[in-house]
C-alpha cells in the first residue's frame, strides 16, 4: 500500500509538525499571554502582556485607562463612582480579572496553549 517515498513524506510531515510545536512551546512564553478587554460581554480588544502599553477607553459607559507594565495589568484611572477597579491590585496570572461594574468593563488575562494555574476565582 505504501511506497518508499510515501513513508518518507509521512515522516517528514510528522517531524515538521513536531519541530513547529517545539518551537511554539519555547517561544509561547513571551507571546502567549494576552490581556483581553471585554465591554458589556463583547470583546473590545486583546493586547500582549509582554508589551508595555496604555489603553484608554471612552464610551457611553464612561472612561477607563488600563495600563500594561512589566507583565502586570492594572486600572490606572476610571471615572466610575465606586473606584473598586482602580483600587484592585495589579493582575498577572491567567484567569485573573479586574471588573469595572458601572462601566460593564472586564479586563482578563488569557493564555493560549498553556496549562492554567486554576480555572476560576472565588471572591
Amino acid at each position, binding site marked *: 500500500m505504501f511506497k518508499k517515498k510515501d513513508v518518507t513524506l509521512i515522516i517528514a510531515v510528522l517531524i515538521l509538525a513536531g519541530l513547529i510545536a517545539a518551537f511554539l512551546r519555547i517561544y509561547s512564553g513571551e507571546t502567549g499571554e494576552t490581556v483581553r478587554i471585554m465591554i458589556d460581554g463583547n470583546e473590545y480588544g486583546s493586547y500582549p502582556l509582554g508589551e508595555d502599553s496604555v489603553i484608554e477607553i471612552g464610551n457611553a459607559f464612561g472612561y477607563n485607562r488600563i495600563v500594561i507594565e512589566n507583565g502586570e495589568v492594572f486600572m490606572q484611572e476610571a471615572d466610575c463612582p465606586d473606584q473598586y477597579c482602580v483600587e484592585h491590585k495589579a493582575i498577572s496570572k491567567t484567569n485573573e480579572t479586574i471588573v469595572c*461594574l458601572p462601566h*460593564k468593563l472586564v479586563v482578563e488575562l488569557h493564555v493560549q496553549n498553556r496549562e492554567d494555574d*486554576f480555572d*476560576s*476565582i472565588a*471572591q
Partner: protein
Amino acid sequence: MKERWKRVLSVGVLMIVGITIGLFLRDDNKSVTKNLFAMDTYMELTAYGRNSEEAVEAAVQEIQRLDALLSTGSEMSEVTIVNREKKGSLSEDYAYLLKRSMELWKLTDGAFDITVYPLMQAWGFADKKYRVPSVTEIESLLTYVDTSKISYDETTNEVVIPEQAQIDFGGIAKGYTSSMVAQIMKKYHIQSAMFNLGGNVQTVGTKADGSLWRIAIKSPYDNVPYLGVISIAEKAVITSGGYERYFEEDGIRYHHIINPKTGMPVQNGLVSVTIICEDGTMADGLSTSLFVMGKETAISFWKAHSEMFDMILCDEECKLYVTEGIKECFSTELEYEIISKY
C-alpha cells in the same frame, strides 16, 4: 456495470455516514462561554459538550428572569413589591428562598437574616450613597430586623411582613441562581460546566478531560496572590469577605456585611469565609452568616453540622483554618490549621 455502481455508491454512503458520526462525536469537545452583567455583578458561564450552546443560552435567560424577580433596585420586582405592599401571594422562587432563609435564620441563630435590608439602606450599600448612620438611627432600625416576625403560610403561599420591615435575598440570591443554573445544565445533559457569578463559583461535573476543577480563593491582602487553590467537582465554592464592597469615612473602612444583631459592619478578626458544598444556596447563606459569627462560633457551628459543608476561614493574621473534609484537596502556601470534628 450496474453492480459496480451499487458498490461504489454503498462505499460512498458508508463513508459519509461514518464521517458524520465521527464529526458528531468530536462535537463533544466544544465549549461555550458567555459573559454577562446581571444582579449587580459580572458573571461568566462556561459549558462543555453537545447542547452547551443551548444550555448556556437557557442559563442566561434564567439568570435574567431571577434578576428581574429578586432585584431590590427595580420597582417591578417581586421583592420590591412585597417590601412595598407588606404582603403578597408568592411565586415559587420567592417562596423557596423565603423558606430556605427562615431555615438558615434558625440554623445560624439569627446570624443570617434577610430583614437586615433597612440597615443596608441606612449605610448606603443599597444605592451606593454611603454614609455612617447615627447610633440612635441604627438602634431604631434594629427593631425591624427580625425574621421571626415574617408570617408565611405555606398552604396559601401568602406572606405578611411588619410595616417597617424589608426583605432582601442578597445574601442568598446568587447562590440560589447558581443552583438553578446547575439544574439547567443537568436538564441539557451537560457533563461539565462552571459558572462564576460575581465571585460565587459553581461547578457541574468535572472538567471536560475528567480532572477536577481548580478554584483559587481570592486574597484580601495585596502581598498575597491567593489564599489557596481548591480542587473540586460538582460543588459550589462561595467566599464572603469585607473587601468586596466598602467605603471609607474619616479613615475608617466600613464594609457591606452588617451584623443583624448590632447593625454595624462585622468586626471580629475574620477577613474572609469560604464555604464549599453541593448546594449553592446554602453555601451562599452560610458564607455570610459564618462571617458574621466570627471564628470561634463558626468553628463550633461547623462541628455541629460538618456533614453539610466544608469551610476555609482567614483571619487578620493571614492564618487559615481549614476543615478536615477538604484537607486533601486544598493547597496553600500560607500558614494553616486543620479543624477536625473531635
